[in-house]
Every structure is written in C-alpha cells, then in structure tokens.
C-alpha cells in the first residue's frame, strides 16, 4: 500500500509459558504512513514492547497480518528476516545496548559489517552518522567513557547508519535525566523532519511523546 510503511490488521499475540497462554495483544489495527513520527504510550505491561518487536521482525505474530516496508514479515524464514531487519529496521533500545569492548566508531560500524561496503565506504557512513548525532569527536571513545545520553546517541547513530526504512525506539529516554532526554527527543524530531525518517517510539513519558506528531495509547493489549 503506497504511502504506508506499516500495515497491521487484526493482529493477535500470545506467549506460551509453561503450558500457559499469556495473551498480550488483542486485535491490533494500525497503519503508519511513511514519514510519520508516532509515539506509542501506555502503562507498563500493556504490550508496547511486544508490538514494537513485532514491527521490528524480531518476534512473530500469533494471528493477523503484519506488513512492514512492503514485506509480509510472517512469511519470511529466519535468515530472510535477519537480512530484512538489516536492510529496513533501525532499532534503539532503552539501555542503549552498545558493545562495551568496541569504540563508538566500531559500534556504529557493526551493522555495516553485514553489507558489501568497502572499508572506506563504511568509514564515511559511520562518520556521517556520528556527526548527525553530534558525536564525531567521540568516535574513539568506549561506551564506559560516555554519558548515558551520549551512549544513546551512539546507539541512534548505529540504528541510522544503514539508512533504514524505519526507526523503532523502545523507551529511548527511559534511563536518562531530563536534559539528556530532551536532547534525544530533539535529535529524533530532527531525524523525522530533516531526514524524513519514519519513527515509531514507545514511551510512557508524556514529555517525550510531545515531540511526536501522533500519539496512540495501548492499554491491556488494545489500541485506544
């Protein structure tokens, strides 16, 4: 469907733990146009992460249709799905999840190692991504030498570096002080307005949600 990057129809998701069915998402319908900046809000345990993971193709729906960046994710094999994620998804975690033994540069370069880019091309991409997030001067720093806000910006550069179709962020400011959180939100806002990146962000911080163009609420597994 032209114009939409995410189409979700009658999506149902349950987990099975110790022979117990745990329903998490009920009958989700959601269409996200290209270029959107969507904030998903909702209380803890409402299924926000689960929904984001499904869109990211790191989890599979139990029932329903899910199409992201023109691909019916449920039909792909594990290998195809990984390849698809590498091409289309930029994921930003609450706890940054940088590799502690790699420098900022090497962390951002990681997704590019899966491409056929030359060393020189990779260097250019990494430098561009790091300068977009304002950390070109911290390339050779290790995560432990950076503040939380800086780590999250490196993580954003890592999500950005492959020029993915969509950026998915799971509580990107959840672990940051107010000032750093604002800087991250400004950055995401710029990525959306200046670079036309489609962004879906999970948050339960109303202040963070203000930066988004659209806010949707999730409660007990249902979109309201």
């Amino acid at each position: 469907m032209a114009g939409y990057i995410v189409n979700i129809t009658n999506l149902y998701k349950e987990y099975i733990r110790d022979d117990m069915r745990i329903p998490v998402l009920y009958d989700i319908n959601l269409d996200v146009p290209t270029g959107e900046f969507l904030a998903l809000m909702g209380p803890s345990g409402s299924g926000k992460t689960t929904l984001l993971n499904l869109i990211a193709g790191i989890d599979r729906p139990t029932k329903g249709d899910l199409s992201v960046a023109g691909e019916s994710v449920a039909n792909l094999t594990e290998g195809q799905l990984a390849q698809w994620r590498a091409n289309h998804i930029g994921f930003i975690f609450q706890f940054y999840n940088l590799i502690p033994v790699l420098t900022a540069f090497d962390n951002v370069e990681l997704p590019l190692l899966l491409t056929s880019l030359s060393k020189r091309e990779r260097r250019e991409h990494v430098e561009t991504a790091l300068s977009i997030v304002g950390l070109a001067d911290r390339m050779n720093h290790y995560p432990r030498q950076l503040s939380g806000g800086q780590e999250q910006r490196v993580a954003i550069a890592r999500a950005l570096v492959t020029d993915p179709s969509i950026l998915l962020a799971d509580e990107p400011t959840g672990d940051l002080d107010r000032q750093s959180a604002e800087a991250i939100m400004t950055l995401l806002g710029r990525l959306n307005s200046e670079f036309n990146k489609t962004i879906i962000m999970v948050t339960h911080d109303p202040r963070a949600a203000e930066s988004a163009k659209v806010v949707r609420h999730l409660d007990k597994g249902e979109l309201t």
Partner: protein
Amino acid sequence: MKLLKLIVKNAFRHRLRTILTILGLAITIMSFGIVRNVLEVFSFSEDDLIPGHLITRHKTSMMQFLPYSHLDKMRQVEGVEAVTYGFWMGVRYGDDPEEFFARMAIDQDNFYKIRSDWITSEEDIEDFKTVKNAALITPALALKKDWEEGDVITVGCDYFETVSLDVEIVGQFEFAQEQNRQAEFMLVRGDLFRRAIGQEVSPEMEHQVGWIELLADPPDEATEIATRVDSLFMNSDMETKTEPVNAYANAQVERFRTIITALQVSSYLMIGVILLVLLNTMSMVARERINENAVLKTLGFRGKHLVILNFGESMFVALIGAVLGAALIWPGIKLFKTLMPFLQQVKFEWITVVWVIPAMIIVGILASLVPVIKATNTSIVDGLRTLE
C-alpha cells in the same frame, strides 16, 4: 575477516580470566607433551632390530654379572656366529647433574661383528682395538663437550664409585636408529673396565661381564639356538637366560608397564582437562552474551555470524594456549631431564608439537558448541529480556 576485531576483543573482555585460561591450557599442553615424549622412550620398533640378535643375562637376576669364560663356551655352540659382551657404566659425569652422558664398556674385539646398529669407520674400530684406553663417542656428545680425537677424559661408573678411568677418544660412532641420533653416548673398552673393577672392587670381577650378546645364524632359528646356549649352563650356579633382543626389550618395557599405563592414562586425562578448562570459560561466555547476541541479531546478524563469533573466540583462546604450550614442551623436557637424570633418553619429538595444533582445533570446536548452541537457540525477545 570483518568480525576478527570483535572476536579478539571479546576474547579479552575478562582479561584475567582469559589469561588464566590460556595459562591453564598451555601448562596442561606442555605436561601432555612431556608425558608423550617420556612414553616415546618406551616404544621401540621391530625394524630397528638386528636379525638373529640374542642377549644373555643371569637367569634369576638381571643385575648379576656372568663369567667371562661363558663367552668361549658359547662360541662352540652350533648356530652361534659371534659373541660379545658389555657393561652398563652409568651416566654421571662430574658433580654437575647437567653434565651427564650415557656410557657402556664393550668388548673391543668383537662388538662390531654384532652391533651393526652402531655405525663407525674401519679406522675407528682399528684404533679402538689397538689403543689400550680407547673410547668412542657419538657426534652429539663430541659437540656438547667439545671433545675431539686425542682428548683424554676421566670417567667413572655410577655403581662402583671408586672406579675411575682415563680414556682417550679415538673416534666416533653413531646409532643407526633415527630416534637415537641425538643421544650423548660413550663406548669404553671392556678389558679396561674389567681390569678396573678387578682392582677396585674384587679380583674375581676381572673375569666377569655385565651381559653377553650373540648373533644367531640363521636368524629364524634364533630361539632354538638360544635354548642350546642356555642348556650349556643348566644346573650350574651361573645359569643363563638367552632371548632375542626384542623379547628382552619387551621384558624391559614390561617392568615399567604400570608406570607406562599410568602415564598413558594421565596423558588422556590431560586432554580432558584441556577440554574442561576451555569449556568452562566458553560456558561463562555463553551466559554473559545472551543479551548481546540478541542485540546483534536485532541488528541483522544471522546464525552463521554468531557461530563465527563464538567459534572464533574459542579457537583464538585455544590456539594461543596451544602455541604457548607447544613452545613450552621443549624447555619443559630440558627441565624434566635436569630433575630426573635417569630419564636422560627422553628426547623432544617434533611430532608431539605437530599433534597439539589439530588436537586443539578439535577442543576449540567442542568448547564453542556451548555458546553457539546457546546463541542460536535463544530467541531474540527472550535474549533481550535477559539482563546480565
């Protein structure tokens, strides 16, 4: 390989743990190498044997000398082609335990008729026969001590401590067997030694010999000829036991059988220890990286990439340990010989080093299975929900 950097950095995440793992591997590999080389001493090949070579010792005690007069009697036996004798003199030389070398006193007139495995020139044999205090040495000994023809050396005997001989080096000899090429060895004239023990120990010893060697002809009747020889001395107080050298060598090995078995078992256990050491480290890695592997998968890393990362890390540690351990085998053996001079035949066999590498590759593969299986079997969402 683009992932190499991450592999190396991962391997040294816990620097102390990795260093201890590598040291553990290296020390065990070194011990394994030493034990295997010690075991080499007890292995001999039938190919190295001289056809028809018999050895005679006292029937009840290997230590007991035999009368010199036996030699002449044996020469009369049908099928006995040649007869010679020898004594073991020991290895000690001076006070420095590093200085030891092996010595035998041998029948200067007949040894070469049987010992075709001692290679020497006609000229050196002639000098050995004619010079009254002659000795022959191996090139390895000449090199180690910087001794040359004409040098006069004072040598003793480990078990008759008052015996001291001034021998003159008249030439060299070499062992035909490949594995003995580097042996540091000296042959001293048997009559000189007999006269010395006659004077220093007791007069009748001048007429005794350590052991007797025979050459049976035809070689395939060696056992029958051995029986004929032994029957000559039946019911005397100097009864003999004659047997083919391979049976003799087997009997020697048999004496050490329990030690050999223990060494063999411990060498296999060492391989187990090597595997456990690495397995232990790699299972810690498996647990610590659950979350990180899920992150890598989220970024688009596939199963094969995680296999490369984990296998690479396991192999990297295994190979550093292997190289270090292999490099320590040779110095380890040197140290071992200084501590235990009686095992001076232990030599460094390259083959033990050559085997370490493929063995460690297998160990590396096995140890990497734990994190590889863990990484590929954990779903991304479960991995992300796992916090270290």
